[in-house]
């Protein structure tokens, strides 16, 4: 390509658009469906029920330790499908790019998307690119939508229908890493960390769990709003009591340190590779053991359970033996001043 920067013409549908599509998108996403470049991708599915989701990614900074906006756009949508019990198959991607954006960086992002798609076993089969004037977008925004197929036995997981008293709550590893890693890269917070985002596709880990247990009652990826928000929503919607034990919740020391310093409660900090699983008590140990064998679940832990008391509320037993309510987050957590 002769240009080094994205021009408005790259989104015009003309020659430059075609050049960009073939030299960046088709090159990296290479698959037979996409190559056809038809207006709609024609995909085969082997089920009469599909799961369908969409999400937009506007993360700033676009490159962060442990990932980038492209990887995030694939993982996020793959995970949204996987936590409903579906097997993710196809993704679409829409790019909104700010005029002047570096083509080299775009190439990096697209290559990272392709790598993550391959890794999680999905195909990116259709896409769209728009270029907006300088200032009308912040570098690059990506939307991905995804289609997966879902087995009949898993269709109740998404709505948590089967959750009952005594069920255990499992998480697949240490919390708050994505939020803290991105925060460390922001201009306004000039601190250096070696904390990587936990950004990862969880579909394989989840598939393993579903293969060995039919007692999975509910799953949700704990992204924005963190683990607390997922559990508060569950408690409120289903009028269930949830008890958490603070000292069982996995968190890395350096992440805890930064949260402590900034006055953040890690329970509310975003993750991009963590799933909260509610499972029948009888299968909890078996599933935990299986999860620990997976690289993305090595530090899995049971962090709480569904209880009869305090319906609609999440109560945390604190590290010092006290107890307190965990409530929904209101607005973004702001740094404390003293």
């Amino acid at each position, binding site marked *: 390509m002769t240009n080094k920067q994205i021009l408005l013409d790259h989104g015009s549908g003309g020659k430059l658009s075609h050049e960009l599509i073939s030299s960046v998108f088709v090159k990296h996403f290479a698959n037979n469906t996409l190559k056809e470049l038809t207006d709609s991708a024609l995909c085969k599915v082997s089920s009469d029920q599909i799961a369908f989701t969409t999400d937009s990614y506007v993360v700033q900074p676009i490159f962060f330790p442990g990932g980038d906006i492209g990887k995030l756009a694939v993982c996020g949508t793959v995970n949204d499908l996987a936590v409903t019990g579906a097997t993710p198959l196809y993704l679409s991607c829409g790019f909104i790019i700010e005029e002047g954006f570096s083509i080299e960086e775009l190439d990096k992002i697209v290559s990272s998307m392709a790598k993550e798609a391959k890794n999680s076993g999905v195909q990116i089969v259709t896409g769209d690119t728009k270029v907006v004037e300088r200032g009308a977008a912040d570098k690059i925004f990506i939307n991905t939508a995804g289609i997966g197929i879902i087995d009949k036995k898993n269709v109740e997981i998404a709505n948590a229908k089967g959750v009952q008293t005594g069920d255990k709550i499992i998480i697949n590893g240490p919390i708050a890493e994505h939020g803290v890693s991105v925060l460390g890269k922001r201009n*306004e*917070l000039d601190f250096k960390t070696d904390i990587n985002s936990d950004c990862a596709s969880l579909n394989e880990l989840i598939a393993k769990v579903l293969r060995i247990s039919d007692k999975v009652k509910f799953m949700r990826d704990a992204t924005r709003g963190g683990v607390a928000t997922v559990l508060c929503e569950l408690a409120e919607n289903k009028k269930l009591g949830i008890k958490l034990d603070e*000292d069982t919740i996995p968190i890395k*020391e350096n992440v*805890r*340190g930064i949260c*402590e310093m900034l*006055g953040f*409660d890690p329970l509310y900090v975003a993750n991009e590779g963590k799933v909260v699983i509610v499972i029948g008590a009888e299968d909890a140990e078996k599933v935990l053991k299986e999860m620990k064998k997976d690289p993305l679940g090595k530090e899995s832990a049971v962090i709480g359970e569904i209880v009869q008391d305090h319906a609609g509320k999440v109560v*945390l*037993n*604190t*590290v*010092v*033996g*006290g*107890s*307190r*309510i965990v*409530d929904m987050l*209101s*607005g973004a*957590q*702001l*740094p*404390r*001043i*003293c």
Partner: protein
Amino acid sequence: MKYIDEYRDKQLVLNIAENIKKISKKEIALMEVCGGHTMSIYKFGLPSLLPKTVKLISGPGCPVCVTSTKFVDQAIAYSKLPEVIIATFGDLIRVPGSNSSLVKEKANGADIRLVFSPLEALEIAKENTDKKVVFLGIGFETTAPTSAATIIDAYKQGVKNFYVLSSHKVMPPAMSALIDEGVTLNGYICPGHVSTITGSEIYEPIAKKYKLGCVISGFEPADMMQSIYMLVKQFESGEPKVEIEYKRAVKPEGNLKAKKMLDEVFELRDDWWRGLGILPKSGLGIRDKYREYDAEKMLVVDVPEPVEPKGCSCGEVLKGIKEPKECKLFAKVCTPEHPVGACMVSSEGACAARYKYDK
């Protein structure tokens, strides 16, 4: 985390709780003055570990909460000036002014930047010489020295476009005023960070005049519980005095260098506290020597008399007369998403802490 986890040891905390139960016979009301203490109490669920005889009341020690509506209105007026960049601690941007808030002005295009230290604000000023940078100086003896140090820096470096809008305050006048107003207390859990600067001597008059125990506490759960234990013990034995629990950080004489800087830049003046009104010699104004950094004197804006929210009980909550739950707006009209009063804004505010952890 070293130096933190030692003070979050479950057995240690439970042992102290047991000791408190053993010695506490009479009902006792203790006020934690500092917002950081309020947070810690609720974050670790400490009330659930205390006997019924011990009642904790949240006091006026959250800087955001005691800041006047007029201050916020003035900051908003500055933010509307095209040549001004506002630099502020994060908590302040959601505090409602009479008709707007900084977060709303930011959405309208005002240049408002969040900083962790006034020194960052000074850097912004140096990078934007065509702009005027106004730092919103709030907080007690803890944050005031960094504002002082920054003003001294600006003076030495000859920076001409940096200003501080000072609403810095000092703690003891508020602690006395509460008792004078008739709030019934049996002891103060005194602020830890403030005391690292001021030392413990500033509480002596309170202990003597009002016969109240004053224990300077650290912020970890074991610190808080130990301080409560010390206050209960003083109360039961009838010997109120000033004691330091937070010995690893607080010296009786305080931080002399920081105190000197405070004195170099600031002078005591009467100041307005939300809920308490005007308290004599409770605020820190910028001395004439540094007037070129004083936003109030150098950037004059016309701010009408503020409109205080109707039905808001922030004042009574700050005095410890009302529990947040007793305010008729609490959790109904006034929530962290739509705060009516300042106590609901900062995570350290009594209402916000109660809303989050104990609704």
